[in-house]
């Protein structure tokens, strides 16, 4: 598991090295609020770019994990690639990554597992160039489910890492 993460991070670093996107810095804002919306002047409604709502709706705030797993799936890395790009655009934003587990585990193990998951997300984002100082992590174990239900559909949604805009 550990080796998998390390190699994954290495790949991510290569990817960043190849594409340090200077064009994105132009839209960087200070202050986390109400940046001018260059991309969407035609749309009067919708999330304010750079806002938490923008992040949730247009980027995707969460990734999901397999049972008792903390490695990132291809779907998860695709989401995190978008998150990293967004975070590099809005450089004043700081985030807290929450790690969560489903109910099919013991409480203390799940706290440790949630912490692993939150750090999987953090490691990936920082490898893509998001400054570690902007990223906090917290594990909730199985204490904060997203979905009520004792079935695989609910558990799948509860095994998650959520990037929360501070």
């Amino acid at each position, binding site marked *: 598991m550990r080796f998998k993460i390390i190699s994954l991070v290495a790949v991510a670093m290569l990817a960043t090295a190849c594409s340090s996107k200077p064009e994105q810095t132009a839209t960087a804002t200070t202050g986390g609020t109400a940046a001018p919306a260059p991309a969407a002047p035609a749309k009067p409604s919708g999330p304010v770019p750079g806002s938490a709502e923008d992040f949730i709706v247009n980027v995707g705030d969460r990734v999901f994990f397999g049972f008792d797993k903390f490695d990132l799936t291809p779907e998860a890395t695709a989401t995190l690639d978008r998150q990293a790009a967004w975070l590099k655009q809005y450089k004043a934003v700081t985030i807290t990554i929450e790690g969560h587990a489903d*109910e099919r*585990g*013991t*409480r203390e*193990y799940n706290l440790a597992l949630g912490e692993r998951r939150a750090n999987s997300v953090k490691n990936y984002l920082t490898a893509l160039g998001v400054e570690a100082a902007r990223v906090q992590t917290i594990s909730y174990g199985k204490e904060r489910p997203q979905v009520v239900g004792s079935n695989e559909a609910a558990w799948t949604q509860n095994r998650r890492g959520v990037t929360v805009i501070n």
Partner: protein
Amino acid sequence: MQANALFSTGGWRVVGRFIALVAVVLAAGFAAPARAELEIDITSGNPQPIPIAITNFAGDNPNATQIGQNIAGVISANLERSGLFRPLGPARFVQTPDSLKTGVRFADWRLIQAQGLVTGTVSQSPDGRTRIEFRLFDVTAGQQVTGLAYTVQADGWRRVAHIISDAIYKRVTGEEGYFDTRIVYIAESGPALQRVKQLAIMDQDGQNHRFLTDGRVLVLTPRFSPSTQEITYLSYFNNRPRVYLFNIDTGRQEVLGDFPGMTFAPRFSPDGNKVIMSLATSGNSDIYTLDLRTRRQTQLTNHPGIDTSPSFSPDGSRVVFESDRGGSQQLYTMNADGSDVKRITFGQGRYGTPVWSPRGDLIAFTRLAGDKFYIGVIRPDGTGERLLTEAYHVEGPTWAPNGRVLMFFKERPSGQAGKQRQAKLYSIDLTGFNERQVLTPTDASDPAWSPLIP
């Protein structure tokens, strides 16, 4: 016939802040040690409960009479819940509390099949001090087997009832009792997605219940100190999950140690001088101790796997913990300095939440296998695994101080249409028999049983 001599043993015991107990032994006058029949072997599978008559203690005034009834009720409920005694209905009693003062008619009590008989008196002096005497008789042998007297303030009667229950339990089973104890646990309320969790404490029979925190901060996994005056637990105060210490007397809360990440899974060492816990940093959890006097932090494990849920052996020499270093969550033991790590479980599924028995002979755990959770026990060398109970979800065993009874929590699955998840406390004998719900005002999880109250 009942000219009992009074031998004073032991002195004052200070109990809590207001109650002082004087215990004296009420010995039978002519103690011809005939073979006592009033015995039960609690190591056998499912013993027949002993029929016992617990009479109201006779009071010397109306208030004392009421206290005498209350005491009999508490003793009766304690012994019944143990599964080892069958308190007989008072309607069949053949003597009144007052007539018992002049002597026990053993032949009559034998007629209603009582094997044990408990009698007592409550007398109050003008300054409010209350003297409570009790006697346990072996009806079959026709003799007194135990007698004790306590002097307390009037509101101390409940504790005396528990202490008497322990004395009866010990006399009949040969084991220490566990009735003069408390439970600290997590009281749960609110919908599943916004669960409110509070520290709560109560006597082992559910009385004297109170909440220790107000629910604004998420709290988990409380455990008693050996003195029973402090609790170590996990609090999300300021969204920083850390191990805390809670003083029950003062209400003071204090974060333990200065660690660079989440600390969790705390337990006291048997001497109460250390707390052992996990520290999670950068996705890895290892086990540490914090010396409460020197505040020195010591790392015991250093492994990329999850190492958590540590619990000391009662002599403090070994630690049992869970780790997924072998690929899945399993139990390991090690020396108290972290050396000599041995894996002790190899079964299918996963093993977690190990807790060393106060007797040292067994380790209780939660096991997940297939789609079920189990509470089980295993010897410290990894042999003799036994599963005691199973359900959709059972977790977190805690030992009664005599190592004969376990408490744990059980959750039922969440149904469709937002049907509320339910969590309750249960107790079960080490034999796997006598599983019972422990009543709590709200949903409940993470129970921790105190040692006998000093």
